[in-house]
C-alpha cells in the first residue's frame, strides 16, 4: 500500500486530527463558561423576583431580599465613578494631548500600566491605610468609593487615551487653522468625536467596580445593616461582599444557599448587561467614527 500520496495523506489526517482537537477544546471552553452562567441563572432565577430585589434580608439572611446590598453597590459604583471618571479622563487627555514625548510621559504611562497590574487586595490594604486610618474616614462609603475609584482609574485613563488617539489629526489641524485654542479644540472638536468610546471605557469600569470584593472588605462593606446608609460616612452592604458572606460564613450556610444563588445571579446579570451595552456601543460608534 505504498502510494506517492501516502505521505500527503498522513499529513492531511494529522492536520484533521489536530484541528479537531483544537476545535473541540475551544468549544469545550466556551461551553464550560456558558455552563457556569447557565448554572447560576437556573439556580438563581427561581429566587429572584421583585420582592427579593426590594426587601431587606431577614431571619439571619436566610430569607428576605438583597435590597440594601443593591443600594450599597449603586452608591459605591456612583461614588467611585464620580472620582475616577473626571480624573481619569483628564489624565487621559494629558497623556494623549498635552504630554510631550519624553521621560515624564513615559513615567505616567508606565505607572498607570503598573497600577492596572496591582492585585485588588493591595488596593484594599492601601485604602485601609490611607482613607480609613490616615485620613480618618473610618469604614465608610467615601473610603470604599475612593479605593474602588483608584482601581478603576487605569481603565478610564487607558480607554480615554485610546479614544483620543483614534481621532484623526486633521480634525485638530482644521480647528487650529480656524484660530481655535488647544483647549477649545479639545473641548469642541476632539472630545465630542471621542466621547462614545470614552463612555464605553466608563461602562467597562462600572462593570469591573460593581463586582470587586477585595478592595471593599475593610474599607466599607458591612456584614449586615438593618437600615440603609444615611450619609457617605456610613458603612453599607454590597452585592459581591454579600455573596461572599452568605456563601461562606454564618451558621446557616445551607439555609441561605438559595439567597446566595439569587445574589450571584443578580451580580452576574448586572455585569453582563453592562458589558454587553459597552460592546454594542463600541460596535455602533466604532463604525460611525471611522466613516468621518
Amino acid at each position, binding site marked *: 500500500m505504498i502510494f506517492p500520496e501516502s505521505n500527503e495523506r498522513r499529513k492531511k489526517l494529522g492536520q484533521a486530527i489536530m484541528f479537531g482537537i483544537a476545535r473541540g477544546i475551544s468549544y469545550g471552553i466556551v461551553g464550560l463558561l456558558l455552563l457556569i452562567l447557565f448554572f447560576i441563572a437556573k439556580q438563581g432565577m427561581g429566587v429572584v423576583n421583585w420582592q427579593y430585589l426590594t426587601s431587606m434580608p431577614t431571619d439571619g439572611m436566610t430569607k428576605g431580599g438583597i435590597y440594601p446590598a443593591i443600594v450599597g453597590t449603586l452608591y459605591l459604583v456612583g461614588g467611585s465613578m464620580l472620582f475616577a471618571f473626571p480624573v481619569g479622563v483628564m489624565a487621559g487627555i494629558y497623556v494623549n494631548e498635552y504630554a510631550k514625548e519624553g521621560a515624564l510621559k513615559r513615567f505616567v504611562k508606565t505607572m498607570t500600566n503598573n497600577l492596572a497590574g496591582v492585585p485588588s487586595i*493591595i488596593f484594599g490594604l492601601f485604602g485601609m491605610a490611607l482613607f480609613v486610618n490616615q485620613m480618618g474616614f473610618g469604614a465608610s462609603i467615601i473610603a470604599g468609593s475612593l479605593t474602588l475609584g483608584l482601581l478603576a482609574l487605569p481603565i478610564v485613563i487607558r480607554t480615554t487615551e485610546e479614544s483620543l488617539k483614534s481621532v484623526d489629526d486633521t480634525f485638530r489641524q482644521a480647528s487650529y487653522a480656524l484660530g481655535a485654542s488647544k483647549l477649545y479644540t479639545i473641548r469642541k472638536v476632539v472630545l465630542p468625536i471621542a466621547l462614545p468610546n470614552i463612555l464605553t471605557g466608563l461602562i467597562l469600569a462600572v462593570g469591573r467596580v460593581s463586582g470587586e470584593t477585595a478592595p471593599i472588605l475593610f474599607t466599607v462593606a458591612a456584614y449586615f445593616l438593618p437600615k440603609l446608609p444615611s450619609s457617605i460616612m456610613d458603612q453599607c452592604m454590597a452585592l459581591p461582599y454579600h455573596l*461572599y458572606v452568605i456563601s461562606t460564613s454564618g451558621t446557616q450556610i445551607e439555609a441561605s444557599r438559595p439567597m446566595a444563588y439569587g445574589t450571584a445571579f443578580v451580580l452576574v446579570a448586572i455585569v453582563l448587561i453592562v458589558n454587553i451595552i459597552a460592546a454594542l456601543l463600541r460596535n455602533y460608534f466604532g463604525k460611525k467614527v471611522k466613516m468621518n
Partner: protein
Amino acid sequence: MDLRRYTEPFFENLIKVCGYSSGFVVLLIVIFLFREGISFFNFSPVEKGYSLWVHSNNPVKKLEPAQIKDIFDQKITNWKSIGGKDEPIHLLSFDELSQAYSPTQLGPKFEHLPRCLDSFMDSLPGTIGFFPEAQTVGQLKTAREVEVDKIALSKFLTDTEWFPTSRPAARMGVMPLLLGTMLVSFFAILFALPLGLAASIYLAEIADERVRKILKPIIELLAGIPSVVYGFFGLVVIVPFVQDAFNLPVGETALSGSIVLAIMALPTIITVSEDALRTTPRSMKEASLALGASQWQTIRKVIVPYAASGITAAAILGIGRAIGETMAALMVTGNSAIMPHSLLQPVRTIPATIAAELGEAPYDGLHFKALFALGCVLFFITLIINLLVERVSAKR
C-alpha cells in the same frame, strides 16, 4: 472672551495635575504599603503589654519566638534543650498563681502579684510565666524578663509556621503561604495553558471569521465576571466534585483552587496569545505553505515559534492574575496556613490570608502590620511578574 483667558489656563493646569497625580498613585500605594509593612519588623512578637519572666538564675536570657511557642505547647519540656540548666520547665499560668495564693495574699487588685510571683519563682526555679507588664516590670526581685528577638526579615521570609495570634509569642513565617500561593497558581496555569493555547490557535488560525465573531466576545465577556462569582461557583460545584472524585474529608483543597483559577485565567491567556499569534507576518505563513507544508505544519513550525514570546507573556500574565486573585482563592482553597504537601490538602494563599485576617487583627498591632508585610511580599511578586511580561513582550 476675557473670561476664557482665566479659565483656559486653569483647566489646562487641572488636566496636567490629573495626569501627574495618576502617575503617582502607584508610588503612593508603595509608600503606604511599605511604611506599614516595614514597621512590622520593629515589633516584638510577644503580645503587647505582656512580658515573659524566668528565675534570675536561669542562664537562658533570650528566646526565639519559635522556642517560646514550643515551650508553651509543651514540646520543649526541659531548659537543657535550649541551653539552660537540666531542669524541667514549669509553665506558670495565672490560674495556678491564684490557686497557690489566697485572694488576700494577691491583693484585691493584684497589687501584691509581684511578691507572690517572686516567692513562686523561688520555690520552683524552672518556672516561666507570662504576665501583664503593668504589674511586673521593675517590681520583681527573683525573676528576670526574658528578651525576645524581634522577627527579622530573613526569619519572616523563611519560617515555616504561620501562627499570627498564638500566645504568648506569635510565629509569622511567609513560607507556608508563599508555597500555597505558588502551588495553586502553578497548577492553575498548568491546566489553563494547554487549553488556552489550543483555543487561541483555533481562534487565530483555524476558525471561520463567522465562528470567531461568536466565540471571541463570549470568552471576553467571561473575563468580566466577578471573582467572587467564580469563587461561589467553585464552592458549590468544583469543591463537592473534588471531594467525591478523590474521596476526601473536605473538598476545599489546593486542587479546587487550581481548577477555579485555571477557569478564571483562560480568557486572559486566550486573548493575549491570540493577539500574539495574529502578529505573524502573512509572508512567513505563505512561504511555509508554498513549500508544501500543511496548514497544521505551518502553525506548529512557523506561527507558534514566531509568537512564542507573546505566548510566554500570556502564561506569565496568567500566573500573575492567579497569584493576586483573592476572593476565589479564599473561598475554595480551604484556608489552612500550613506547609503544603499535596494538591489534595487545604492550603492558603497570601491574598486570601490578608483578606481573611485583616478584619480581625487589632489596629496597628503586630498582626495588622504582619499582614501589610505580606502585602509587600505580594506586591514584589506581582511587580517582578509585570516586569517579566514587559521584558518578554518587548523582545518581539
